[in-house]
């Protein structure tokens, strides 16, 4: 009902010849955003046409209601100045004098022709900044370790234990599921290939080496980087947003000692265990499929495994796990501490943290592969 009413009294224009023979344009109705509605597409052109006519007298006194949008519509049609002949009511006078006082919008900054260079430079500087901050963080960790070695009573046991539970125990479910499925798929595909050569027995070598040396540690590290890394970054980020980090500082509690060191130590301890667990479950999956597909007895599988897979592979896998765990925790905390106190930065920081952690985990794996290329392979 009300809606209809508004449309009926929407902005009107009436062109006529005034008493003294001058052309006269009388405006009426409601020049408000709500009342003009869809007509906003057509009105500007119509008004501009009238504005182009020289000597036209604009009479706005008949307008029932006009808001900022209505005033701007007219103002733009006039080319941001008053027409020569304008009749206004006092409250309209106020609207237009405000319009004259409005500041000009800031000019758009033209794009620098050197922007690709600038972008590249900025990227390199950012990378450098990250590296310096990471090295500083590692140095701080070492200082903390030295301090705690002489003050063992100050070791943050509770925090370490809580982190062990969160990053280790609570990760067992997802790593088992993923590990088992990968083991099943790997075993299934390999056994089909081996069957064609009649080399069924080598399934144990393939599964043993690939899972214990490579897949177990990598799967665990990538899952933990996604799961625990993101939560560590987000936790520190939220503490920054809510000023909890500042509250800790003014209480004289060191961030690195209470928040970061426990995470690094706990993940360094938890990761080898998670790796062991993931590898075991993946081997179990592979063994079950080998028994079904190839009829390889599981007792035989378990007996033969230590013979074909040198124990060095296991230590290599566990060592990788420990290094990856500590690096994931360090990177996550580094990004968490860099988050600024706004929500935008929180989201971006968490994404960057996970992406970086996973990339670095894979780089570490490649370095291990090169350095230990002569170890554990017959």
């Amino acid at each position, binding site marked *: 009902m009300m809606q209809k009413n508004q449309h009926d009294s929407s902005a009107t224009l009436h062109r006529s010849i005034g008493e003294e023979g001058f052309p006269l344009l009388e405006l009426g109705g409601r020049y408000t*955003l709500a009342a003009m509605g869809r007509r906003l597409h057509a009105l500007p052109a119509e008004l501009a046409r009238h504005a182009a006519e020289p000597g036209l007298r604009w009479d706005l006194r008949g307008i029932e209601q006009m808001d900022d949008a209505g005033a701007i*519509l007219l103002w733009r049609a006039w080319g941001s100045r008053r027409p020569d002949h304008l009749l206004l009511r006092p409250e309209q006078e106020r609207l237009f004098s*405000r319009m004259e006082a*409005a500041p000009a*919008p800031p000019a758009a900054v033209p794009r620098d022709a050197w922007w690709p260079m600038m972008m590249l430079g900025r990227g390199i500087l950012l990378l450098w900044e990250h590296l310096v901050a990471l090295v500083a963080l590692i140095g701080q960790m070492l200082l903390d370790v030295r301090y705690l070695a002489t003050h063992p009573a100050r070791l943050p046991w509770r925090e370490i234990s809580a982190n062990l539970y969160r990053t280790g125990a609570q990760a067992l479910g997802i790593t088992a599921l993923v590990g088992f499925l990968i083991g099943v798929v790997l075993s299934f595909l390999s056994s089909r290939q081996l069957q064609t050569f009649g080399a069924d027995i080598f399934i144990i070598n393939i599964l043993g080496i690939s899972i214990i040396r490579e897949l177990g540690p990598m799967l665990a590290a990538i899952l933990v980087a996604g799961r625990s890394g993101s939560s560590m970054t987000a936790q520190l980020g939220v503490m920054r947003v809510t000023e909890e980090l500042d509250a800790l500082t003014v209480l004289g509690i060191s961030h690195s000692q209470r928040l970061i060191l426990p995470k690094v130590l706990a993940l360094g301890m938890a990761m080898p265990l998670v790796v062991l667990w993931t590898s075991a479950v993946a081997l179990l999956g592979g063994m079950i499929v080998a028994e079904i597909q190839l009829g390889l007895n599981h007792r035989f599988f378990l007996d033969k495994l230590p013979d074909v897979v040198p124990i060095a592979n296991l230590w290599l896998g566990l060592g990788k796990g420990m290094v990856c765990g500590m690096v994931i925790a360090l990177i996550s905390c580094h990004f968490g501490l860099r988050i600024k106190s706004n929500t935008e930065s929180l989201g971006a920081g968490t994404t960057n943290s996970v992406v970086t952690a996973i990339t670095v985990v894979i780089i570490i794996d490649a370095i291990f592969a090169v350095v230990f290329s002569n170890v554990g392979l017959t």
Partner: protein
Amino acid sequence: MGKTCIIEVEGLHTRFGSHVVHRDISLCVRPGEVLALVGGSGSGKTVLMRQMLGLETPAAGSIRVFGESLHGHDREALQSLRNRWGVLFQKGALFSALSVYDNIALPMRELRTLSEGMIRDLVMLKLKMVDIGAEHAAKMPAELSGGMIKRIALARAMALDPELLFLDEPTAGLDPQLGEAFVKLIHAMRTELTLTIVMATHDLDTLVALSDRVAVLAEQRIVALGSLQEVAGMEHPFIASFFRGERGQKALGNTLS
């Protein structure tokens, strides 16, 4: 027309679990007035305001804004209703991913009827209205002080020249001088535009400076409703401590005598 209500609350009950917040509240906000909701913490003034905005659903009772139920299913009607009100949240609630300019331009762009040139002029006008210089237009909310955030949030609330404005603690978190300037700003807007304002506030100075009528929430209902003078004289423990306490007397001193 003088008797119609912009907002009509009838028989409103609110419960959170077994905790009763409102018991049978009825209220009428008249066109053009400034109605202040007052009450101790936990008395449910913010909840009542959120219900008027359709952000929360009452357990029983109805709320009609511009004669329209907030829980209707007509999308178009609800949208056009929402274009007629503006809301100033307590902490501003500026979109942190958008610049100051884009924050104010967002409601205008959502209308899809305004040209980008017109939006630019309108945004600059709104910024001028809340006394923010053009040099701040490109800044992000994270770079602004609390007072600026409040003023820009008010500019966003006023983006579509609403007929109804909700203010949640408009002066909370501002220093007294800024608070006073903010009250003056709202006052000036009222004289220029026909505005109905509903505000929840703790601040007595704001209350004295702006409100036409005061609704006092206590004991799960509205215990008093009327002009500041009428309400301040009523017998009720909360009113006595709020309006006739030391702070209250100071703020009300001139108005009551």
